[in-house]
């Protein structure tokens, strides 16, 4: 007797421009249920920057696979993750130590494409990020906002090698397509990592995020860190992370990275730019919600100090990273001594560069001192962005460009004072060189 074949009822699905999606094919509730809580309550601990970043990802129920490859100064991130996961009895989370950074990036593509509702984090640094480049460019364009690539800033591949904090690695990857957010201090690192997937996976954005912090100066600096209960982090992220409207490799009939002709390539890039631009609208919403829930400032375009209520300042510094703290430490005394209103902004959002917000903040400033900390062929990466932001003003402030702290070099109080003196020349109408480098209170 012939057996009759009864076809199974087709699974509910619908069509998207990216292919068919089968929403019922993946059930993430068991993943959520398998999460082992790290912190039941709000706790205060001592931690360095790498530990802060690792704890933030460990507390997310959506992070279950941690691919990584060690490189100084980011190694402690994956070590911390591995140490915690190895302690979990019956835990389902896994660490994948890969052969090299390129393999890590490829792993992130595969995993993030397989399940677009989980988050796939890693941390790298310097040449590690460079080794990933072929794939990070693809990731940046992929719409895989569930990739979280933490960059621990270190001078990027060059002679001589240097293992300390210098943002040349992240600045060399401005065009990879990642949202790039700079942090300073443990709390900002922890808070930024928690908020990053909310931004990257937002349906208007769909772009991977590269939060970063300075190697050694922040990755290895211990201070007090407030960690939130896992359930609070989950509640916050669940408000922002909705099921991905596009199919993944497991729940869809789709493919990534097809070859297209010039008739379409440009169109894809326009879409990529528009998604990136929407970060400027979405980020403040996430930030406000974070502050409401946790009582600390959320993501920001920049941190500002010293501007009056009218937004005016004689002289403003633009920089990023922990050395800005040393500027803050000398600012008031310097302002008193020189009888100038001295203000400053420490950039947080590097890509997309918040040009409108920067222009608005600096439009009532007479001179701007941009302190670059990465090697650049000209006046400095940050200077070019600031100059672009201020270009539309009728009477833009004069921009003075300096370099300090390249390769993680110490930027002492006296160095800040020398740079401020140099920049003050712009207020006095002095001719200044297109760029100058400062160290230990001297112009080199």
């Amino acid at each position, binding site marked *: 007797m012939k057996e009759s074949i009864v076809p199974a009822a087709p699974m509910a699905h619908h069509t998207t421009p990216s292919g068919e999606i089968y929403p019922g094919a993946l059930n993430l509730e068991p993943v959520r249920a398998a999460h082992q809580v790290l912190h039941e309550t709000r706790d*205060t601990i*001592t931690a*360095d920057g790498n530990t802060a970043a690792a704890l933030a990802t460990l507390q997310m129920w959506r992070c279950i696979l941690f691919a990584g490859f060690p490189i*100084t100064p980011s190694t402690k991130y994956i070590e911390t993750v591995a*140490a915690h996961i190895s302690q979990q009895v019956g835990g389902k989370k896994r660490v994948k130590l890969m052969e090299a950074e390129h393999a890590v990036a490829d792993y992130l593509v595969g995993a993030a494409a397989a399940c677009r509702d989980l988050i796939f984090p890693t941390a790298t640094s310097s040449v590690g990020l460079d080794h990933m480049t072929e794939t990070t460019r693809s990731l940046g364009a992929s719409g895989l906002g569930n990739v979280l690539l933490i960059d621990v800033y270190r001078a990027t591949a060059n*002679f*001589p*090698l240097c*293992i300390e904090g210098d943002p040349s690695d992240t600045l060399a990857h401005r065009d990879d397509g990642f949202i790039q957010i700079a942090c300073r201090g443990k709390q900002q690192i922890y808070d930024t990592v928690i908020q990053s997937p909310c931004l990257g996976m937002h349906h208007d954005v769909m772009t991977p995020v590269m939060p970063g912090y300075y190697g*050694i*100066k922040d990755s*290895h*600096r*211990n*201070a*007090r860190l407030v960690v939130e209960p896992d359930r609070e982090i989950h509640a916050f992220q669940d408000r922002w992370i909705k099921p991905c409207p596009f199919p993944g490799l497991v729940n869809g009939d789709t493919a990534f990275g097809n070859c297209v002709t010039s008739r379409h390539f440009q169109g894809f890039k326009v879409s990529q730019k528009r998604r990136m631009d929407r970060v400027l609208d979405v980020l403040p919403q996430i930030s406000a919600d974070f502050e409401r829930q946790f009582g600390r400032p959320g993501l920001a375009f920049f941190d500002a100090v010293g501007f009056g209520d009218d937004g005016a300042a004689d002289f403003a510094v633009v920089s990023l990273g*922990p*050395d*800005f*703290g*040393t500027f*803050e*430490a000398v600012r008031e005394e310097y302002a008193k001594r020189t009888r100038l209103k001295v203000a400053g902004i420490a950039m947080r959002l590097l890509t997309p560069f918040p040009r409108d917000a920067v222009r608005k903040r600096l439009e009532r400033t007479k001179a701007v001192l941009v302190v670059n900390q990465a090697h650049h062929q000209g006046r400095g990466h940050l200077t070019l962005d600031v100059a672009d932001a201020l270009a539309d003003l009728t009477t833009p402030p004069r921009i003075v460009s300096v370099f300090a702290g390249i390769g993680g070099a*110490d*930027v*002492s*109080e006296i*160095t800040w004072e020398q740079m401020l003196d140099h920049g003050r020349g712009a207020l006095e109408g002095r001719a200044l060189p297109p760029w100058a480098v400062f*160290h*230990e*209170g*001297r112009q*080199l």
Partner: protein
Amino acid sequence: MKAPAQAMDLQDIIRTSVLEVRGDGKAGGGLVLAFQSLASLMLRDDDMHVQEWPFFSSARRGANIRSFLRISRRPIQAACEVTRPRMAVLMDEGAARSVDFAQGVPPGGTFVFNTRHTPEECARHYHLSGRVVTVPGDDIGTKHLKHAIGNVSLYIAAARAIGGFGVEQMVDAFLETLKKRRIPAAILERNRAALLASAESIREGIFDEAGPDDHPLQEWSGYGDLPVGAQTPLRLSQSNRTADYAPSGFRLRFEDPATACTGCAHCITNCPEGIIRFVPDTERGLLVTGVDIGTFCKLCGECIAVCPEHLFKEVPFEDRWEEVLSS
């Protein structure tokens, strides 16, 4: 001995401004752990703000490293290195051969040593004015941890010098740092014993032995002539004084009273620093005559391992301080 100087009140500095501490030691010696534990201890006080971080390069175990610590009851903004510490800590006396560990410390500062020497001997040898605290950490480490590691003791001595916490809290904070590193329980107990023994072995005094020209802040003299493209001679290590990487308390010795050297040249080819001395020899081809241990021998042990006649040995060695001997 000059009249005692005044010592600064470190708790007052913490209350009114920022106490800055700098430590010098060698990679692998536990300086970073000691400073991390000090940070953890201070953060037990909810009103305290702390910053702690190390400075090291890619150099190997034995290279000089530094640790920095800022403590205050006010939020700390400065992120730059500490150049004028009110308290200087020396984990390994070998580290002081390469740097002035007391540089920039003002008169009345506090100096903490892991050493067998007395506070008075340290003050005279290093020309210090202020409070000098010593603890024989390596000996305590050897007794309780089977390893001449002085960071346990140095931590207790530094914590005692800063003040504000009892011995029990100091012990707990250190063990907590070790637990984060997943140190087994049995080792934790040995550390507890070492910590308690250290607390009993601290000596201190106030001295005025620094002259006006001692420990000045050096003005940075620029980068000098840097080679184009970072291209350097292959033997870079010979400008790095690699002898400073050697563990303190030991030295290499070559002895060949019976001219047993066979001229096999294994020591010459294996020495990474090229410091084996030899002369041509008609019978053996070459004859090893000695080794230049003064500047570049980092006690890697290659020559000891490969010499078929066992002519190289690692022997105990103790720096002799002339001042101490004369007194």
